[in-house]
Every structure is written in C-alpha cells, then in structure tokens.
C-alpha cells in the first residue's frame, strides 16, 4: 500500500507525464470526467453525471473519411490513440461496467477504436466512502469499498492510499511512499456497513435469465411500466453500460465523413430498417432496454447482467421510472 497526502495530488498527477482524466465539478456544480491541468480539482461528489464509459466509447467519433479527388478515393482512418492516459477516480460501478463493455467491444469482431483506447488506459479506481440511497451495486456483487482497476485508491481525510492490482498499476505508483493499511481497513468497514443498508442493495433478480425469456417478454405489466415514459434518451446516455450506437455518413462537399454516435433504444428510429420500425410504440422500446440488460445480456454472457447498480437512471429519469422499479414489478419474489 502506498500513501500520498491529498495536498500533493497535483504534483503526483503532473509527475505521471501523461494525460489524466478525473471527475471534477462543471459550472453547474455536477461532476464530469475532465482533462486534468493544474487547478482542476477532484470533485467531492460521489459520481459523475456521465459515466466513465465516455473515455472509451465517446458520444460521437469519426471513424473514417473518404476523400474524393478526380477519379481517386482516399481513405483516411481516425484510429489515432497512441498515447497512454490515466483515468483517475473511477468508482467500482463504472469499473465493473468496463468489463461489460469489453464483452461487447472486445469479442469477435473486435472494435479497434474501443480497443486502442482501452489498451492505452490506466485505470485508477476510487473506493466509495459515502454511497447514496440510489446505489445498488451490491446487488451485482460489486464491492464499492474495494474496486478493481490497475490501481485502487482510497481517499481519507488527509491522504490517498493506493494499491496496485496490475503490473501497469505498480509502475504508476512506484515512486510513492509506503503507507499503513489500517486507515483503509477502517474506512472499508464503515463503507460496508452503509452498503449493507442500501434500500435496493439486495435487489432480487431471480428469474431474469434466458430460461424465463418469453415469460418476461410477454408480461402484461410492461404496459403500466412504460406508460409515463417520455421516450427521451436520458437513461441510456447516463448509463455506464449502454453500448448501442448508430453509424452515419456526413457529406462535407469533397469528403464523406463516416461517424458513429450513441443511439438510444428509447428513440423512434432505433434499429429502423427499410421495412420500418421493429418496435413501433414506446412499450416495445422500453421493454427492449430492460430485457436487454436483465435477460438478453445475461443469456449471452454467462449470467452477467448489463447493469452495475450505479443509480444514475434512478437519479436522472425525468419521470422516475427505472431498472429497480422494473425488476421489482416483474421480478423475483424476494423484493417484498
């Protein structure tokens, strides 16, 4: 275990000599992953509005340009990440979300754009010490007091404590002084006490699996659950595991820019095909989102759910409909 006084964070980040992204408050007072420079302060808040997935899977990116000149077409690629970078202060839920995204983007066919960023990133996670009532990471077996990543950090009143989990991580913190683990253990005990009391921490997901797919799909209660849904994309855009995107082309006049951007299953043109929209009403779109996270994804991925319990959708949905309400309405008996 290594130790660093909080007052020395800036000089430590500077000494890393590579781009660092950390959660910092934006002008509205909410936290956002921000490129660190001297003066950029680590937030005091629990988590960012937009998740850390943005750094691997940005909302919009150019994939390739086709430049047309006379009879020639030049193809310009945009895979240009070559520099290592650090994401500092990732919470356990967001770090667990990376593993879910990896299952999508790193399985065959591997997504080169995602992989390049992933390969060049060093992840420093930050243990939680004050979870919110909207957190339910424990339901997915995530320990917010001991998150994964290349390095795990704990922040106490006056110090950071670091533990390397990988070789990359070890190099990153090699220069720091050794620290005593007792402060970390005390904080973990306190945090776990709170985690055990989270109102939705023991969310029962029994029955959300491939074997019950049609039963869940045909449940009559999707109607009442989706009734008030506005069909906006807030839940999908703040979600650390939502990974759907659209690929489009833009004609600049002499160049075709092929880009991809986040898509939302809540939108009316999502997966629209020449034959039309396969999910004609909000009920089907709404059902798609939760079936994907709670049934299809685990069915295709060894039982791993497409949710990490970060609670962002609980906080941000304009009409307060979310995965916890869905799971409790059509889910396991154990939810009381």
């Amino acid at each position: 275990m290594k130790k660093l006084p909080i007052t020395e964070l800036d000089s430590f980040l500077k000494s890393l000599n590579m781009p660092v992204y950390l959660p910092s408050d934006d002008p509205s007072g909410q936290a956002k992953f921000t490129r660190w420079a001297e003066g950029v302060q680590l937030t005091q808040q629990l988590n960012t509005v937009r998740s850390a997935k943005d750094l691997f899977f940005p909302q919009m990116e150019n994939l390739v340009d086709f430049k047309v000149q006379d009879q020639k077409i030049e193809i310009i690629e945009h895979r240009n990440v070559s520099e290592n970078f650090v994401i500092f202060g990732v919470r356990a839920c967001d770090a667990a979300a990376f593993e879910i995204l990896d299952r999508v983007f790193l399985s065959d066919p591997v997504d080169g754009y995602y992989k390049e960023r992933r390969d060049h990133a060093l992840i420093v996670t930050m243990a939680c010490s004050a979870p919110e009532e909207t957190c339910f990471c424990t339901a997915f077996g995530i320990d917010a007091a001991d998150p994964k990543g290349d390095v795990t950090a704990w922040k106490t009143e006056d110090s950071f404590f670091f533990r390397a989990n990988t070789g990359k991580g070890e190099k990153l913190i090699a220069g720091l002084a050794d620290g005593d683990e007792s402060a970390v253990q005390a904080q973990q005990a306190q945090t776990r006490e709170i985690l055990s009391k989270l109102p939705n921490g023991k969310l029962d997901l029994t029955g959300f699996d491939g074997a019950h797919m049609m039963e869940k799909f045909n449940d009559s209660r999707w109607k009442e659950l989706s009734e008030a849904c506005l069909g906006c994309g807030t839940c999908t855009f703040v979600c650390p595991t939502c990974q759907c995107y659209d690929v489009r082309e833009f004609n600049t006049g002499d160049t075709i820019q092929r880009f991809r951007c986040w898509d939302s299953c809540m939108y009316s043109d999502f997966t629209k095909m020449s034959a039309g929209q396969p999910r004609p009403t909000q009920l089907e779109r709404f059902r798609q989102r939760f079936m994907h996270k709670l049934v299809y994804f685990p069915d295709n991925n060894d039982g791993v759910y497409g949710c990490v319990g970060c609670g962002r959708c609980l906080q941000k949905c304009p009409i307060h409909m979310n995965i916890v309400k869905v799971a409790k309405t059509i889910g396991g008996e154990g939810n009381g």
Partner: protein
Amino acid sequence: MQEVKQKAIELLQSGKVQRVLGWKTGEFFYDLTPAVFETVEEIKKDFVFSPFCGANLSKYLIAESRKEGKIAAFLKPCDSYSFVQLLKEHRIVRENVHVVGVQCNGMCDIEAIKAQGVKGVTAVRQEGETLVCETLYGEKSVPYAAALSERCKTCKSKKIVLFDELLGENGEDDPDCGRFDLVSKLEAMTAEERFAFWQQELSRCIRCNACRNVCPACSCEKCVFDNDTLGTANKAAANSFEEQNFHIIRAFHVAGRCTDCGECSRVCPQHIPLHLLNRKFIKDTNELYGEYQAGADLETRPPLVDFTQDDCEPSVVYTRGGNGK
C-alpha cells in the same frame, strides 16, 4: 394529500370518470411517476400527492383524452396553464377530461436537497420552515426554501386557470415574482459575455431530448429533429456547441406558446437553465406586443399569430440588438 386521494377515489366510484391521472408512489419518497389509475384499489395502494409531484401532467392528456371514457386529471397551477394552452391548440379533447385543480406551495427537488450536502436521503418530514431528512448517515435538516425546485423560487402564479372542480383555495398571479431577473442580467451582458455564457451552458448538452419530450408546447406528431428522411435528424453534434442549434430552434418554435412551466430545466440531466431561453422570448413578446401570458385563457389571440397595425416592424431587431449590429 388525503383530500386529493379521497377525491380521486370518489370520482372513480361515482362513475364520473373511468380513469384518473395522477402520481404514483416510488421506491423512495421523491421518485413519483405520472400514472393512470383505473381502480380504487390502485389508488388506495399507490396514489400520492406530495411536494415531490413536480411532473406536469397536462401533456399526457393529449393521448389520454383521445381514449375511450373520461379521465380525471389533477392539475397544479403551472399544469393548468399548459392544459389551457394545449386546449387552445386543439390538442386535447376537452369533454373527455375532468380537471381537478390542486393548489401547490412550490415543489421540492431531490437534487436541490442533495446540493445542500445531504447524502443518502431515505425519508423527509416537514417541521415548519425546515425539511428534516432521514439519511443513511443520520438526520440532517435543510431549510424548506432551499429544497424548492429552481422554477418554484420565482413562481409566476398560484392561479389555477381552468378547472371543473377545485380542492382548496385558488391563488393569484404574482407580477413581482422576479422571474425575468436573470434574463435582464443576461441582457445587460456584452454580446461576447452572453455568447460565452450560453456556450458554457449548452456545451454540456447530451442531446437526450428530455427537454423536448417533456415540454407541453412540443407536441408535434413528428419532430423535425427526428426526421430521418429530411436529413435534419442531427444525431451527433459536429462540435461541443452545435447543440445551440437545437435549443435555439426549439425556443423559437415554442415562442408565444411556452407557458413557462419550467419542465425543460427540471428534467435536464445536465442542469442547463433552458427556461431562460424561453423567458427571454416571453419578456421580448411582453415588451414588443404588450403583456401576454400563454395558457392564461382560451380567448386572447397569441401575439405572434395575430396582426395589428400597431405591431412593431421587423427592423426592431436592429435597434434592440445594440450598436446597430
């Protein structure tokens, strides 16, 4: 609260309505969802009216009033303005709706409570001017005024402008609510400062469309920004400020029809003060065409779709823009 719930039960039981539009209880005290209730049992179990019923129900009536049977809708003052405006635009089938006016003392916002440094809130109770919060970390108190939703701090009116029956007392307009104060501040800025202000705000937009989808004035069957065939879908922004395009066009489109209900800013996950764009249009309309409040009544002709010989000339933009620019 009990009175509202009782009224909902009574309306269903008497057969006066077949459905009730209200707010449904959630996992916490604050995460209430707009819902349609069809049985007394559902109402007894889940119907809530509390200071966390911020959601404006009027827009749901576009679809609900077209269904069979009559629906009762509980409308707060803000919601009643939206309702009237939608009636004026022929978007709601009036005879299928029974409006119950409910008074409002300002709605609370859980994010405002949390901005006071209160974490892990699991319950609240009001003690005079204080909101006592039970949290995972013990009890914390915040002043009730600090828990109010931003829009409720400058409430324009406690008047329920249209109702079939009213619970409690009707209120009055408040011309001194100060809702244009921030707009005046923006007007006093130089063009560069104002540009910087909006750039900073709008560059946070993630284009989730929550503002548009919740907006009672945004009731187009198909939004131009969803129109794939027209090439205006605009799914990705070319730069961090391109979203201004969407917001400015939206503000223009709802000009003269926006009742200033504030739902756009309430739902914005990025806390962009979108209502300020609409308020600027309202303020300008008031100054150029005389005081006008959208949704205040069914009769007045909206200034932007009316013509009088006294109307200002389009050239007014030059003099108002300052420096002839």
